[in-house]
């Protein structure tokens, strides 16, 4: 798989939101990926990371110092804005609703997980369609593969971390078995893809 050093302008213009899902080994993966997001990122970044309840509230503290972009815990009814990173809060599902705005729920756990990657990905696929990039990273359960399939069905771009490069490959293998992955990339390759998601500039519009 070749490294997507710079996304083509049509991808840059196309992607309005990135959803990422991970569990075990996810923090280490995100420590590589999130710092790669440029200051002028043209997409909103929404993340579900499974952690035990008491730990996950620390996510913004861990990642804020590593990122150029503002990092926060998602709030219910908050408008989604490009160039921001949102984490699902502990023990709540995170969804994207019309607006687009963020929505939370305490519905039943999915794959024993709340927040669930499937819930985020499916709701975001509904809102963003082809303008969504979905990424499944290191993890230890089946959550995420149904969500990634929903992203693909809606015309979004789907990426799965290469199993050999994942600390815990169970989740990415499950996603690959689901057959919805368009690209299978190493962490540095995913970082390069994210690094290329600059907001489209007027020059691109003239070219198009």
């Amino acid at each position, binding site marked *: 798989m070749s490294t997507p050093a710079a996304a083509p302008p049509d991808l840059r213009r196309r992607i309005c939101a990135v959803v990422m899902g991970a569990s075990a080994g996810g923090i280490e993966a995100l420590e590589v990926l999130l710092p790669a997001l440029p200051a002028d990122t043209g997409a909103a970044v929404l993340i579900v990371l499974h952690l035990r309840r008491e730990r996950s509230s620390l996510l913004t503290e861990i990642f804020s110092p590593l990122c150029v972009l503002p990092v926060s815990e998602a*709030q*219910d*009814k*908050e408008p989604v804005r490009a160039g921001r990173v949102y984490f699902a*809060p502990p023990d*709540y599902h995170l*969804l*994207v*609703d*019309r607006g687009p705005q963020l*929505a*939370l*729920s*305490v*519905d*039943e756990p999915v794959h024993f997980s709340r927040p669930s990657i499937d*819930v985020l990905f*499916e*709701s975001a696929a*509904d*809102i963003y369609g082809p303008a969504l990039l979905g990424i499944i990273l290191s993890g230890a359960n089946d959550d995420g593969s149904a969500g990634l399939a929903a992203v693909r069905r809606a015309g979004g771009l789907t990426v799965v971390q290469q199993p050999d490069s994942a600390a815990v490959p169970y989740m990415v293998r499950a996603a690959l078995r689901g057959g919805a992955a368009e690209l299978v990339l190493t962490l540095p390759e995913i970082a390069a893809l994210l690094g290329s998601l600059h907001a489209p500039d007027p020059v691109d519009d003239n070219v198009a």
Partner: protein
Amino acid sequence: MLETSDIELQLLVDAIYYRYRFDFRAYAPASLKRRLTIAMIHLGCQTLSQVQDLVLRDPETFTTLLDYLTVQVSEMFRDPSYYRVLRERVAPLLRTYPSLRIWVAGCSTGEEVYSLAILLREEGLLERTLIYATDINAQALQRAEAGIYDVARIAGFSENYVRAGGRSSLSDYYVAAFDRAVFDKSLRRQVVFADHSLATDSVFAEVQLISCRNVLIYFNRELQDHALGLFREALVLRGFLGLGSKESLRFSAHAQAFEEIVPHERVFQKRGNA
């Protein structure tokens, strides 16, 4: 242009409203759609239009659907720090009233009601309190009134109870029988369980405390504001409003009417001039 599935969603909630007078029209669409999709699969339907057809003609199907739309499985003393704030900051002020009325709005299967009743008993307040426990789902209300929970959930409840500052042991309040924990009837002697909709009904009493946790997140912003307006009207001046740990008044038209008494714990007090 609306997607077909969005059109179907809208038509289905309209049909439910016209046929059964349950109003989901102002619920937040993402969660509503997710719940309806799960119900659709359970009902063996391929589309929400098929669900609509069934629901219009068969009240039993509607009862099933209502559970998917409304039942929240909560925990006793969920978010222990919330109950700690009620105990340490709110109860001392409630004690100054000769009689108390408390409203648990959207009580579902009752976990929150029993948590509050236990807290009030330990603070010596239960005997002078009337708790209104309301929900739109009659079956959930029945389960709440029964006060019987799966014994497998009790360990989690007990852990929460201790962290919430419980003064004895949770086992003082229930009897375990086979796989069930049956909560002490005397806890609900002061509780009135009643059918009430935050979307379509009005205020029925003046109260000193309202606890409404993880209900407003399912409403759109307009319905949230409507419900908060009801709460504002029902509360006495300086009365208390407790919300879920991720619910805020920040985006609400009623934000100015309340102040948060402990940052991040989502316990608000109605201002003296509101």
